[in-house]
C-alpha cells in the first residue's frame, strides 16, 4: 500500500527517463538529503566525523569506483590500494606545487592523474582476464606503493610520511588539523552527491550498457560492434578516477597524514572489494550499503566486544576478520547480489504489503 507505482503515470519523455520514477523513492531520497545536508552538519562532532561519517563516505566513493570496474565491466582489480595512493600522492604534489589552487580542483586533478595510471595498468586487460588480470593488478598495487616509498620526489624530499597542508574552500578550513568537522563533512558530501549522480547516469546510458555487455560476454559484445579496447580502458579510467579522488580525500580530509605502506596496503584493496561484494556487484546503491557495512561493522564490533563485554582489542580484531570472511562466503552462497538485492526484495514485498497476494 505504501510503496507502489500504481497510478503514477508518465506523460512525457522526461518523466519516463528520470532517475527515480517512483514518487515514494523521491520522498525517501529527499528525506535522506535533508537529514544529510540540514541536520547532520549541526550535530556533527569530531568523533562522529572521523570515526564514522568520513570513513563511510570515502569508502562509498572508492567502492563506487571499484564497482564500475568489477561490477559493471567485469574486470577484477586488486590494485585499489595502489590507485588510492596515486590519488593521495598526486594531490599532495599538486597542493604543494600550487598553493593557490582550490582544493576542489586539486582533488579533481588527482583523480585525473589516477585515471591515467589506471589506464596504463588496465592495458593488460585486453589480453588477459579473470584471475590473470587480478594478478596483473596486484603488480600495480605492489609497484606503486614501493614507488611512493622509494622515490623522494613524491614526498618532496622530506619524510616518507606526507602531511596535508591546511586549505580553505569558500572561506572554510577543510584540510589540516584545525578544520571544522562540519565543513569537512559538507565538502566530502558535495563530492559524493555530484559523483553519485554522474555514476547513476553513466551506468544507465550507452557507456554503462557497453560495459555490461563486455562483462556478460566479451566476444558477443565485440560482434555487436562494441570495441573492447576503448570500453575496457574507459572503465579503468572512470573507476580509477573515482578511486583516486577517494584516495585524495582520505589523505586531505580524513587522515591528514598518510604513509603509503600503511594507509594503502593490500588489505585496503581487499577491504573495498569485500565492500562491493557484500553491498552488491553492479549496483550503485550496493556500493553505499557495502561501504556502510564495512566501515561501520568494525566500530560496532569494537563497541560491543571491547566496551561492553570487555574483550582484549586484539582478540576483537581477530573475530572481526573471521566475521568478515564468513560474511563474504555467506553472501556469495545465499545472496550473490548482496545487500542491494535484499533492498530490492524488500521493495517487492512492500508492494504487496499488507496483503499476502
Amino acid at each position, binding site marked *: 500500500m505504501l510503496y507502489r507505482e500504481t497510478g503514477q503515470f508518465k506523460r512525457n519523455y522526461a518523466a519516463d527517463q528520470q532517475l527515480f520514477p517512483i514518487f515514494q523513492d523521491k520522498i525517501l531520497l529527499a528525506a535522506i538529503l535533508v537529514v544529510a545536508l540540514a541536520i547532520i552538519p549541526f550535530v556533527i562532532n569530531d568523533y562522529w566525523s572521523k570515526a564514522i561519517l568520513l570513513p563511510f563516505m570515502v569508502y562509498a566513493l572508492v567502492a563506487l569506483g571499484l564497482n564500475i570496474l568489477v561490477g559493471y565491466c567485469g574486470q577484477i582489480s586488486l590494485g585499489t590500494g595502489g590507485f588510492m595512493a596515486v590519488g593521495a600522492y598526486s594531490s599532495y604534489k599538486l597542493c604543494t606545487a600550487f598553493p593557490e589552487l582550490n582544493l576542489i580542483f586539486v582533488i579533481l586533478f588527482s583523480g585525473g592523474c589516477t585515471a591515467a595510471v589506471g589506464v596504463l595498468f588496465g592495458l593488460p586487460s585486453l589480453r588477459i582476464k579473470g584471475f*590473470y588480470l587480478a594478478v596483473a593488478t596486484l603488480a600495480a598495487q605492489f*609497484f606503486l606503493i614501493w614507488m611512493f616509498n622509494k622515490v623522494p620526489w613524491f614526498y618532496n624530499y622530506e619524510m616518507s610520511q606526507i602531511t596535508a597542508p591546511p586549505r580553505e574552500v569558500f572561506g572554510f578550513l577543510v584540510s589540516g588539523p584545525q578544520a571544522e568537522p562540519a565543513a569537512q563533512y559538507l565538502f566530502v558530501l558535495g563530492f559524493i552527491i555530484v559523483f553519485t549522480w554522474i555514476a547513476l547516469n553513466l551506468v544507465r546510458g550507452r557507456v554503462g550498457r557497453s560495459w555490461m555487455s563486455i562483462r556478460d560476454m566479451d566476444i558477443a559484445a565485440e560482434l555487436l560492434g562494441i570495441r573492447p579496447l576503448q570500453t575496457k580502458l574507459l572503465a579503468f579510467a572512470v573507476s580509477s578516477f573515482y578511486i583516486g579522488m577517494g584516495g585524495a580525500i582520505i589523505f586531505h580530509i580524513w587522515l591528514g597524514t598518510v604513509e603509503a605502506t600503511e594507509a594503502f596496503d*593490500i588489505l585496503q584493496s581487499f577491504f573495498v*572489494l569485500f565492500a562491493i561484494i557484500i553491498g552488491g556487484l553492479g549496483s550503485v546503491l550496493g556500493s553505499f550499503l557495502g561501504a556502510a557495512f564495512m566501515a561501520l561493522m568494525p566500530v560496532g564490533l569494537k563497541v560491543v566486544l571491547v566496551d561492553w563485554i570487555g574483550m582484549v582489542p586484539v582478540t576483537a580484531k581477530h573475530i572481526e576478520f573471521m566475521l568478515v*570472511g*564468513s560474511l*563474504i*562466503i555467506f553472501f556469495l*552462497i545465499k545472496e550473490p547480489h548482496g545487500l542491494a538485492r535484499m533492498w530490492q526484495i524488500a521493495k517487492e514485498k512492500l508492494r504487496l504489503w499488507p496483503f499476502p497476494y
Partner: protein
Amino acid sequence: MELIYAVLVQPFVDMYLDPLIFIETVIKGLMAGVLYSLVALGFVLIFKASGVFNFAQGVMALFAALTLTGIMEYMPDGLPKWLTVIVALGATVVIMILLAVIIERVVLRPLVNQELIILFMATLGLSYVLEGAGDLMWGSDVKVLDIGLPTDIWDIGGVYVEQLDVTAAIAAGSLVAVLAIFFTKTRIGRALRAVADDHQAALSVGISLQQIWVIVWSVAGIVALVAGIMWGSKSGVQFSLSLIALKALPVLILGGFTSIPGAIIGGLIIGLGEKVVEVFWYSVHGGAVENWFAFMLALAFLMFRPQGLFGDKIIERV
C-alpha cells in the same frame, strides 16, 4: 648515460669481478624459489582438480604452521623431542584434513556450478576466516618454529649455503616425486586426473566429485603444511607469511596454472630473478624490489604468453 651504464654494464662487471657473491646469490635465489614453488604447488593441485583458484593457499600455510607451533607448545615438556614433533605433525595433518572436509561441506558444495570468479572470491573470504581463526586460537605474536631441522651453514669453497635451504629443496623434490607417483599410479590419482579433465565425464563413470574435492583439498593442506614448516623455520611464523605466499601467484602465471613442473620451474625463475636483481641492480632501484619484481615479471610475461610456460593453450569459443 650513467643510468644506461648502471643498468646494462655495471651489474655484469660486478658479477664477473666477484663470482663468489654471484654464485651465492644464485643459490639463495633458487632456494627462495623452492619455497615459492611449494606454495604454488598447492594452488596447482586445487586448480587442476576443481578449477578453483584457491587464494587461501598462502593463509593455509600460515594456519598449518600456526597450528603446528601451537600444538607443540601445549605438549608436555618431559617427552623426547622427536616424539613431540611427530605427534604434533600428525595432529596438524589431521586438522588440515578436517579443514578440507569442512571447506568442501560449507563453502564448495553450495557454490557448485557457480562462476569461477565467485568461487575465487569465496576463497578470498576463506583466507580471512582462516587468518582470524589461526590468530584467535594461537595468538598473533611471531613464533619460532623449531622441529629439529638442521640450521647450520655449510662453507663450500667460500660460498655459504644454509642447510635449511637444502632441506627445503629436498623436501620439495620428494614431495613432487610422491605427488607424481600418486597422480599416475594410484586409483585415486587417476580419478583426480579424470575430474581435472572433465567433470561431467568423471561423474558419468562413477567418480564422486565431493570425495575427490575433499582429497584434493587435504593434499593441498598437507603441501601447505610443508610450505609453512619451511617458511616458518626460516623466518618465524607470522602474518607476513600469508603475504609472501601471494608471490606464488606470479609463479603460477609463469609456469601455467595447470602444470606441476611449471610451478617448480616458475618458482625457481622468480626466486632467482628477484634475488639477482635485488643484489646486482641495487644502485638503480635502491632496494626492496622483491615486493613487486615477481608481479612485474609475470605482467610482462602475460603479454606474450598468457598460458604460461607449460600451461594448456587458452582457446575461446562463442
